[in-house]
């Protein structure tokens, strides 16, 4: 609004010392700390993926030994899931935007918020230490009894790293829940909240309800491994499948920790670039909660080929199909929002188009996998690998990129180069499909995951996949250049460069330290684009 009044006073200029960043309690600065760390872990995880794809270029296991390969895919999974995907949107964009979107001055517990960044970073460093001193080879799933009794790699260190990181997740979730309940501005009723906030509320429920279970489970694995207490070891009467139950009680909902915030970003972007209110706002809001709740009822579908009982498996299979309903509600409602909207095709919207298509493929192949007969056939093949990468990369990362572009002018007050942003979005979409679609085919043909060598008849698909990964890497590298360039040479962003609705666009770019010059009062429904 009044950009001219105080052009130089904002949260970025409020202190330049290292201390003013490392001891900050401002949710916006903490969001940027997360942006920095999360990007570092993304590069690390991508580096592992690169070596994996390079190894798989040829059928023979010639680049790395199988032992090293085991460590590579494990570390790729651990770093990408626990240290990139789970914190990415909530901790970077959520941290920055949730308080602003509801008109609060900060999150309810600013010190806990800072603590959660330190826990995340500390946990990450632990994991890095484990990596430098030999890595870990159990797969990111840590299945017992291999992880607890047999693996000779640094399982215990990584467990400690993930355990510490878990506290970070819990504190973030707790902070969001309390903030959304107690800190909303006058007039910001539940049904005036942006869908981004609803999505983060649902995500926070999973953080709070799921994370403690993985924490205690990994603690038990650690106790068995280090103190030789028998808990899952079949030699001592334990049941290794019990580990899988406890592990997936968190780790299946964790997928929704990744995708729900992405859906929240998609809702904001669809509305902004269609210049229309979200169709069926309440349905989209409640579908987030439904996904969060249903997500806890389906974990057994990861265990169809374990000794899980067939009756239990059938129940889990049927419940898994249920998740398709709220997911489909979202996709239909986004489509209905775009229908007859005045759509424009700026870079963030290109990511949304990519996201919706890829998420649908990922979601529908998820239904194949929820069917027991199909799942038994393709368990531990590249079909599964392709499926979850369509959700996690095609879903979560696409929207992380889309959201980062959309709110970049707000966060830094600078405009990036739109042309290159569009080129990057298209490159990422093409590269992604070239990487992962062949994996559906090669997986269905029977190529198992987690091996560094494979029969020669699968080579064509693997060459395509590695070529795609190269394109994808170029696509991901491009934003690093033009986004950084924008920080130094970009044009100053106005308060509302997209003409979007929402409280974050009513404050200056970048926002002042306390988010608003005058505390906002909300008087209109969300996405009020009609006027």
């Amino acid at each position, binding site marked *: 609004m009044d950009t001219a009044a105080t052009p130089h006073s904002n949260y970025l200029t409020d202190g330049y010392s290292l201390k003013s960043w490392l001891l900050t309690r401002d949710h916006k600065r903490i969001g940027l700390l997360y942006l920095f760390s999360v990007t570092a872990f993304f590069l690390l995880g991508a580096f592992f993926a690169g070596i994996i794809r390079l190894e798989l270029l040829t059928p023979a296991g010639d680049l790395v030994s199988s032992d090293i390969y085991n460590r590579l895919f494990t570390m790729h999974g651990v770093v990408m899931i626990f240290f990139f995907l789970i914190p990415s949107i909530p901790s970077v964009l959520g941290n920055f935007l949730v308080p602003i979107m509801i008109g609060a001055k900060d999150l309810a517990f600013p010190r806990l918020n800072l603590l959660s960044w330190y826990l995340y970073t500390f946990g990450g460093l632990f994991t890095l230490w484990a990596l430098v001193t030999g890595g870990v080879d159990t797969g990111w799933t840590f299945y017992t009894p291999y992880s607890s009794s047999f693996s000779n790699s640094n399982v215990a260190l990584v467990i400690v790293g993930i355990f510490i990181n878990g506290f970070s997740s819990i504190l973030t979730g707790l902070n969001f829940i309390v903030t959304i*309940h107690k800190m909303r501005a006058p007039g910001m009723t539940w049904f005036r909240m942006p869908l981004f906030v609803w999505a983060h509320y649902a995500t926070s429920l999973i953080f709070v309800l799921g994370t403690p279970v993985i924490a205690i489970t990994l603690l038990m694995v650690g106790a068995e491994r280090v103190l030789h207490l028998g808990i899952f070891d079949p030699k001592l*009467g334990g049941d290794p499948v019990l580990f899988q*139950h406890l592990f997936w009680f968190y780790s299946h909902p964790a997928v929704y920790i990744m995708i729900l915030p992405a859906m929240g970003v998609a809702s904001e972007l669809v509305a902004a670039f269609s210049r229309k209110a979200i169709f069926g706002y309440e349905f989209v809001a409640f579908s987030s909660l439904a996904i969060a709740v249903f997500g806890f009822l389906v974990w*057994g579908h990861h265990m169809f080929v374990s*000794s899980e009982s067939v*009756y239990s498996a059938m129940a889990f299979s049927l419940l898994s199909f249920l998740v398709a309903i709220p997911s489909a509600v979202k996709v239909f409602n986004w489509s209905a929002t775009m229908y007859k909207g005045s759509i424009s095709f700026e870079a963030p919207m290109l990511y949304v188009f990519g996201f919706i298509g890829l998420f649908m493929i990922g979601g529908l192949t998820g239904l194949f996998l929820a069917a027991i007969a199909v799942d038994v056939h393709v368990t531990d093949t590249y079909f599964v690998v392709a499926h979850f990468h369509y959700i996690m990369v095609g879903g979560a990362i696409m929207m992380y990129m889309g959201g980062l572009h959309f709110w970049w002018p707000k966060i830094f007050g600078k405009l990036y180069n739109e042309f290159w942003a569009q080129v990057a979005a298209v490159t990422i979409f093409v590269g992604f499909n070239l990487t992962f679609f062949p994996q559906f085919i090669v997986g269905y043909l029977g190529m198992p995951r987690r091996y560094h060598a494979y029969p020669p008849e699968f080579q064509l698909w693997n060459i395509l996949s590695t070529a795609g990964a190269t394109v994808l890497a170029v696509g991901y590298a491009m934003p690093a250049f033009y986004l950084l360039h924008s920080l130094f040479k970009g044009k100053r962003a106005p308060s509302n460069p997209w003409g979007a609705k929402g409280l974050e666009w009513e404050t200056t770019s970048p926002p002042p330290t306390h988010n608003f010059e005058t505390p906002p009062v909300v008087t209109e429904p969300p996405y009020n684009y009609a006027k």
Partner: protein
Amino acid sequence: MVNDVTHADVEYGGTERPKHLVPLRVYFAVFAALMTLTALTVFAAMQDLGPFNTVVALVIACTKAVLVVLYFMHVRYSTKLTWAVIAGGVFWLLLLLLMTLSDYITRGPGWLHFG
């Protein structure tokens, strides 16, 4: 039942007052009940009730927990939101316990013998 404290609550912004002074005798009564129930659960464990030993032990433990939550933790006087948070926690605990159990109890004859 309740001695209301009368403070100027202006600084609480007209929101719910943060405290609800529970009379001390309620605390003492709850304490006595908890001690009695502890003795009762030990006594019940000494009796052969067949499969009901576990049931009785759990019912007594749940009763004690409810007493602590309602009175020592003041939930009886708290907002609906607090009730909802607690209900959610208990519900999710039951999900974890019962859905895991659904696998074990349907594994068929010789179930659970993997030793």
